[in-house]
């Protein structure tokens, strides 16, 4: 299985190597690869159905306890089959759909990588590794949504989705680390073994909340659902693959994966089902008044994701079974519908439901496919959707918690679904063709292949639900962690669930007829909705972001104001504080040296230097300042001379002389000192400067008692005459022992000299 993931990577990059002439075969190659993988997983189905799992364990960073672990069990099998099969259909579909666009190699590259990342995600048995695949899918989703990156809306939507899912990803990561710290491992099997430990720990609740934020953002649960609507900017194959069948299901997958570890507590049941129910209702309610066919499908996707989350939250065997069946139901009909929507857009050139009509004449096959898929969505027999819906109703009847409320919400939501299904069918395929509609173009007929297969599956599984048992059964065993035997039937007999279904369909159809006959109803409804739901999540999100950026830039201006002297003041003051602190903790304040003025000529010299420093600082005349500076330098060289540093004295004298010459040369061409600071600034600066000077005085006094490592000096002293044949130790150190350092110093001087030369010689550039 590891090889599969590597193959994905290799194939994705290999796409760039295929010559442009053969570019038609790129999607076919990937599609074929997916078909092979589908076959590969199918061959393991009997093993997995028997309750076995295939594990791969590879050491990755053993020092950190990180391993690369893959596991193919009932749950991951379901997802792996869905990913590979729908992936296969999507690439076939994309071959026709994408042929008129440029840069398709990049598109297939992203899509292939995404498919690999998604497969890696569902196969992961180590949570750190799972998190990496999780983030990879977010990033690739970003790249795919912004595929039409010349479109500003697409860029914005892509950024929004990355922001939301990335935020959720971080929360998830925190949760993984929290739980990891409880059991001291990131391995799925360890977590499963210690599930009771995790639930009892006080870190359980924060971890659960963080996990759920991660899942809700990924699976577009209310109130994070808005990014999925923006994601409809992506090319249709992406919407059909990522934003209905696979990526958004990653949250559902993780919910199912963590069900035996975190589930079963009242917190889990209440929070998860509450958000699921809320999402389910909002999604289906808002879908009715949409005009854009892709947005209608996006809202129903949100609703379906809500159903899945709700079912996994309800925490009964019935509900989990319903969730697994509904997973297939939704994957089949929603991908088919998205691909159909892409086909319709290609045929008519518009996505607005108002401008499309009468497509049954030009595309009877499309009509049949749409009918099957929509009936499955509405939950009408004999489609798979009917079985799914019956199971969901059954689960809600048996729910130990809020059974009636959940039923009412569920029925309401399903009524809307029925209405939407009929509306979609009638508005798009029946009625009059609009005038502006494009003429049918038969070159797109091939687009119907993939949705056709999915529609057939919706019908086939509905008629023969036994096929699904061997897929759903093992998954159920993994989630519920015990052996469950299930049976799926199309006809359950005349029980309360059936009557509820009947009621749902009847009300739904009535609602549809009413809306269809009185078109103005939907317009009024739209206006009412806009009034009630005036909070536009997208707008809230982007304005919040803008405000945050404004706030940050204000803060940055406070710190990075651009005045060098305030930077210097900050540095000086902070250094002073650090020095005081350091002197305080390591040394005392008492001074060990005694104060003397002996010898007097040095004391006199120091006094002269001090006066000249003051003179240099306070003088308003340029020449005085520089002369005083020179006096300081010469004075210091005399101090060096007295205290046994002959070489230093000589160097200092030469340098000082050169410096004065340079200054005087430049001075001729510079203006007089202007009075630039006022009295207050001067006082402030003087205060800071004197404080710093005082601290440095203390530092100098304390530094006298610091011992250098004597052995270094001793070595130089001992070996200067012996090895280097030099008597002046300082000189020998510079030119012999540390000759390379001196070479570096010379280089620095050379560069400085070159810099000066070029600065002074550069001719004025033309303006």
């Amino acid at each position: 299985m590891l090889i599969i993931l590597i193959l994905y990577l290799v194939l994705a990059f290999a796409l760039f190597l295929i010559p442009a002439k053969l570019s038609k075969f790129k999607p076919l190659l990937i599609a074929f690869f997916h078909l092979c993988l589908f076959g590969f997983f199918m061959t393991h189905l009997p093993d997995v159905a028997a309750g076995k799992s295939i594990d791969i364990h590879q050491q990755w960073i053993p020092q950190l306890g990180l391993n690369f672990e893959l596991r193919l069990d009932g749950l991951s099998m379901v997802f792996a089959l869905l990913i590979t099969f729908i992936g296969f259909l999507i690439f076939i579909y994309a071959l026709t759909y994408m042929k008129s666009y440029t840069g398709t190699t990049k598109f297939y590259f992203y899509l292939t990588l995404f498919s690999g990342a998604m497969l890696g995600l569902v196969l992961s048995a180590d949570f750190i590794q799972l998190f990496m695949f999780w983030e990879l899918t977010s990033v690739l989703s970003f790249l795919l949504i912004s595929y039409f990156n010349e479109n500003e809306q697409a860029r914005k939507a892509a950024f929004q989705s990355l922001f939301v899912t990335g935020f959720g990803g971080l929360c998830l990561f925190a949760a993984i680390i929290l739980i990891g710290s409880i059991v001291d491992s990131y391995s799925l099997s360890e977590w499963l073994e210690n599930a009771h430990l995790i639930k009892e720990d006080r870190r359980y609740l924060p971890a659960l909340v963080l996990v759920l934020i991660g899942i809700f953002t990924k699976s577009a649960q209310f109130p994070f659902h808005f990014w999925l609507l923006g994601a409809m900017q992506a090319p249709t194959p992406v919407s059909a693959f990522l934003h209905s069948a696979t990526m958004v299901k990653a949250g559902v997958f993780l919910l199912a994966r963590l069900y035996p570890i975190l589930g079963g507590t009242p917190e889990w049941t209440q929070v998860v089902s509450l958000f699921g129910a809320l999402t389910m209702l909002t999604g289906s309610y808002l879908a009715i008044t949409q005009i854009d066919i892709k947005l209608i499908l996006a809202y129903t996707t949100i609703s379906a994701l809500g159903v899945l989350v709700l079912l996994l939250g309800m925490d009964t065997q019935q509900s989990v079974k319903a969730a697994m069946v509904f997973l297939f139901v939704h994957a089949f009909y929603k991908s088919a519908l998205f691909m159909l929507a892409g086909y319709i857009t290609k045929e008519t050139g518009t996505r607005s439901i108002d401008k499309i009509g009468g497509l049954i004449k030009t595309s009877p096959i499309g009509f049949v496919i749409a009918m099957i898929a929509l009936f499955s969505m509405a939950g009408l027999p004999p489609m798979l959707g009917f079985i799914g819906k019956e199971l969901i109703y059954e689960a809600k009847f048996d729910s130990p918690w809020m059974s009636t409320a959940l039923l009412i919400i569920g029925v309401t939501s399903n009524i809307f679904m029925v209405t939407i299904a009929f509306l979609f069918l009638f508005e798009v395929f029946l009625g009059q063709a609009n005038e502006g509609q494009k003429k049918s173009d038969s070159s797109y007929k091939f687009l119907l292949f993939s949705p056709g297969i999915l529609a057939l599956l919706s019908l086939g599984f509905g008629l023969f639900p036994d096929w699904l048992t061997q897929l759903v059964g093992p998954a159920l065993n993994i989630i519920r962690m015990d052996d469950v035997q299930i049976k799926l039937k199309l006809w359950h007999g005349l029980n309360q669930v059936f009557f509820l279904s009947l009621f749902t369909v009847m009300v739904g159809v009535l609602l549809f007829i009413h809306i269809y006959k009185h078109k103005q109803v939907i317009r009024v409804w739209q206006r009412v909705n806009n009034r009630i739901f005036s909070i536009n999540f997208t707008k809230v999100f982007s304005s919040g972001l803008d405000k945050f950026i404004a706030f940050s830039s204000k803060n940055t201006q406070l710190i990075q104001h651009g005045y060098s002297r305030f930077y210097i003041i900050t540095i000086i003051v902070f250094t002073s504080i650090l020095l005081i602190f350091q002197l305080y903790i390591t040394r005392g304040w008492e001074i060990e040296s005694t104060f003397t003025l002996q010898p007097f000529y040095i004391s006199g010299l120091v006094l002269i230097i001090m006066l000249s420093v003051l003179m240099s600082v306070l003088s308003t005349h340029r020449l005085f300042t520089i002369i005083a500076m020179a006096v300081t330098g010469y004075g210091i060289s005399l101090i060096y001379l007295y205290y046994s540093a002959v070489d230093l004295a000589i160097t200092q004298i030469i340098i000082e002389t050169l410096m004065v010459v340079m200054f005087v040369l430049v001075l001729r061409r510079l203006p007089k000192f202007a009075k630039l600071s006022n009295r207050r600034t001067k006082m402030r600066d003087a205060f800071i400067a004197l404080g710093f000077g005082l601290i440095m005085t203390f530092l100098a006094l304390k530094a006298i008692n610091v011992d250098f490592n004597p052995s270094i000096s001793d070595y130089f002293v001992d070996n200067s005459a012996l090895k280097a044949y030099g008597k002046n130790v300082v000189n020998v150190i510079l030119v012999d022992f540390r000759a390379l350092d001196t070479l570096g110093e010379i280089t620095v001087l050379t560069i400085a000299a070159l810099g000066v030369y070029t600065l002074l010689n550069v001719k004025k550039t033309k303006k």
Partner: protein
Amino acid sequence: MEILLSALTGLLYAGGVYLILRRSILKFIIGIIFMSNATNLLVFLSAGIVPGQPAFVGDAPSDTELMADPLPQALVLTAIVIGFGIAVFTLALKYKFFKATSTDDLDQLTNTDA
């Protein structure tokens, strides 16, 4: 004597900081020179001061215990030269800057292009 010399070092630092905080670029450069002198003196003092015993060794092993420490001297010598390099370079830069902008005020340095 150490106390007096330390006080001198402190005063040099104070003068340097005060000049660096001025808006005039020429004063700024002089401030840098003061600071580098002060630092040289600080390093020099930290080895302990020994009058009249330069680090010269003869053929016969002399009494090295009393001799001044040569290592800080070597360090300071390098620092003096490098300090000079920096001062001269900033001076040239300042000259060029003045020719381009005709101002000595740091606060006028708002553009990267002349």
